[in-house]
């Protein structure tokens, strides 16, 4: 015996105290009696033993001291993951030998019986650390993260760049890419801080992300309603970044690891006036909406460009990785709908859209099971792409300037060369309402009142939708055939709605023609009937604000009437 042996014994007692602050010794992974957590051994002093043994380890490196759970786990899957996660292996199965909650924490290979824990704890207690054997709500692990995978996905970093704190294990992504079980400088044993989702960005390089307000906004929560950031310590949108919507473990919405299910809850915790300035939730509570509530689990980012099963979720119209406040002149898509898929004027899927109408065409054009037009007309068409085609005899100028180069009622700044958005007519009602067709008190999610019932008493309010652009004064009071002869006679004197004669979207050239269907004329057959003398229900454009009609309306026969 000598002095050095004595020092050994003293050192054995002192070394834990001398270790740097970020040692496993100071973390809850120190399951020994000296550990700082509440889940720990009753008397065992060895720290490493709960995971490692120098001899007779199993099932694998690094010198593992625990049994393989040997279970079949429910794996993560989604339509947008190109990775093929297998049953957990590598480091992941080692982590799961505690974190699936099936094996007693003290059950190690190097001891004949399990090491007793305080309070009688055996397996991992319920809570965030117990992942269970259902990994479908957890970020996938144990998949080959190859350059090929990154290329297929298109929004993943080249794995060759993962040489820093986030690393792969044998080219596999394992728990250890994000977690270092021996050090806990950021909480949750993370290898990189989650502030502004720095950790996520090592692998996930989402298109558009750098400019979106979901990355950049300094908005805070006003404290009302649900805490939108219930699983993070951060208090602004930009600090939460990915975690505004996503959660890498225990995700409420398993697919794509969303905070919540159903889908809209991820958006509306912020877009209810409590974080974002505009209260979209309120708009969605109105009578006529893009109803995000009625369906759940139908939307799929991989569904065809022309939507086959019509539905509305927030993410059908908005790309949360791209959305931002960036105005655009019609017909271009603005920042709110940047980076979303659509269908172009030829009916071909596009990604991303260039024009706003291409977004609307995903569901309102060639999709099956569209509802019938709200007005029954002599020419029926509920494919709005065909209604707005620039080859049509007439159309509202959604894709390009209209056919009619003489529209005397137009209010500035509108001219015959103007192009407008679908959302100029279809939008939430109310002067302060946020842009976009979220919800309205008016049918068809119209921005303003648009009465379509026969015998509606004319007023500015009744047809305000039209009068916003088409000057009421000019339409019903101007001299000559345009004002008094045609419009005043019908709208004011006969209480006939605009909608009785005009089909506001347009008349497809496949059905109408440049003689009978200019000026959006396509009679509502619930109000206008054929002329009994000729059997015709027809408008004829005679040019230069002249025309004639064959019809019967309000008991008055036009056989024909000229103007």
């Amino acid at each position, binding site marked *: 015996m000598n002095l050095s042996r004595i020092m050994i014994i003293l050192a054995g007692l002192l070394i834990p105290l001398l270790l740097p602050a970020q*040692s496993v010794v100071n973390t809850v992974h120190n399951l020994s009696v000296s550990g700082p957590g509440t889940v720990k051994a009753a008397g065992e002093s060895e720290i490493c033993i709960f995971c490692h043994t120098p001899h007779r380890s199993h099932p694998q490196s690094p010198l593992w001291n625990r049994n393989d759970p040997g279970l079949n786990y429910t794996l993560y899957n989604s339509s947008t993951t190109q990775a093929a996660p297998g049953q957990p292996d590598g480091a992941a199965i080692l982590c799961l030998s505690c974190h699936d909650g099936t094996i007693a924490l003290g059950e190690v290979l190097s001891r004949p019986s399990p090491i007793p824990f305080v309070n009688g704890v055996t397996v991992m207690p319920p809570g965030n650390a117990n992942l269970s054997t259902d990994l479908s709500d957890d970020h996938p692990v144990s998949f080959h993260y190859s350059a090929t995978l990154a290329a297929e996905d298109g929004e993943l970093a080249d794995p060759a760049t993962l040489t820093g704190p986030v690393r792969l294990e044998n080219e596999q992504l394992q728990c250890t890419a994000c977690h270092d079980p021996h050090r806990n400088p950021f909480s949750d044993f993370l290898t990189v801080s989650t502030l502004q989702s720095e950790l996520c960005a090592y692998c996930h390089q989402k298109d558009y992300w750098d400019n979106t307000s979901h990355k950049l906004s300094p908005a805070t929560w006003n404290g009302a309603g649900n805490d939108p950031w219930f699983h993070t310590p951060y208090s602004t949108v930009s600090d939460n970044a990915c975690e505004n919507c996503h959660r890498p473990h225990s995700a409420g919405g398993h697919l794509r690891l969303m905070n919540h299910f159903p889908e809209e809850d991820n958006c509306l915790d912020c877009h209810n006036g409590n974080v974002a300035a505009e209260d979209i939730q309120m708009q969605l509570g109105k009578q006529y909406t893009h109803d995000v509530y009625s369906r759940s689990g139908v939307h799929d980012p991989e569904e065809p460009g022309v939507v086959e099963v019509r539905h509305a979720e927030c993410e059908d119209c908005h790309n949360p990785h791209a959305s931002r406040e960036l105005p655009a002149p019609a017909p271009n898509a603005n920042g709110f709908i940047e980076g979303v898929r659509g269908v172009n004027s030829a009916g071909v899927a596009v990604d991303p859209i260039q024009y706003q109408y291409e977004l609307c065409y995903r569901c309102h054009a060639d999709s099956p099971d569209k509802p019938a037009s709200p007005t029954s007309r002599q020419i029926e068409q509920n494919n709005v792409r065909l209604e707005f085609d620039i080859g049509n005899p007439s159309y509202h100028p959604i894709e390009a300037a209209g056919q009619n180069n003489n529209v005397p009622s137009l209010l500035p700044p509108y001219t015959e060369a103007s192009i407008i958005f679908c959302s100029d007519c279809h939008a939430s009602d109310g002067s302060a309402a946020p842009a976009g067709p979220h919800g309205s008190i008016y049918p068809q999610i119209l921005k303003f009142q648009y009465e379509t019932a026969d015998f509606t008493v004319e007023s500015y309010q009744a047809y305000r939708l039209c009068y916003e652009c088409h000057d009421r004064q000019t339409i019903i009071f101007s001299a000559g055939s345009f004002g008094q002869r045609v419009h005043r006679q019908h709208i004011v004197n006969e209480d006939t709605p605009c909608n009785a004669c005009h089909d506001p979207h347009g008349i497809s050239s496949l059905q109408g023609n440049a003689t009978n269907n200019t000026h959006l004329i396509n009679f509502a057959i619930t109000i206008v009937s054929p002329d009994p003398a000729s059997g015709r229900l027809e408008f004829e454009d005679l040019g230069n604000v002249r025309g004639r009609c064959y019809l019967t309306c309000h008991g008055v026969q036009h056989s024909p009437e000229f103007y």
Partner: protein
Amino acid sequence: MKHAKFVTFLFSGLLMLNGLLFSQTISGSAHDFSNETWNTTGELCIVCHTPHHADVTVGDAPLWNHDVTAANFTLYNSATLDATVGQPDGSSKLCLSCHDGTVAVDNFGGQTNGTQFVSGGGLIGTDLNDDHPVSFVYDATLAGNDGGLFDPTTTNSGLGGTIDEDMLFNGKLQCASCHDVHNSSGIAKLLIKPNSASALCLTCHSK
């Protein structure tokens, strides 16, 4: 020097206490084969050592008197291993000349037809994939590359000097880095220092 004497004095009481608690000698330890029936010499050291005509085929072998293993070992490997691990050499090869189970314990002094083989907990076997790696260079470069190891040239071993000085052999980690074959400290499993609070592990591992 003066300081060392003072410390010696200070802990002289503990020294004696330690002597009572631990056997602190090979005599009576698991490596004491002097009373085995197969050791007809009754000698303590002879199973491993001889003063003359020693086997010098293994580098650094201390006057070796035991048959040396010829096994080809399956080595430890892991995705996070930065060390270059070769076939066991130096003193580790000597340890494995009993503990791999291929060479009889009583194959010493030129005898090769022994019948006593290690079994039970002491049997390491030839598959070292489940064992802590040995016979690799552990230097400042390795520590720097790994990030989870202390620099052996500057880190105190707790045994009086640095890890390199007290626990490595020609710069290599060997079985004897953790185990004291002669049981001079009397710690269970012939450890060179107590593993209470994993102190032995955490001498090298910066975790």
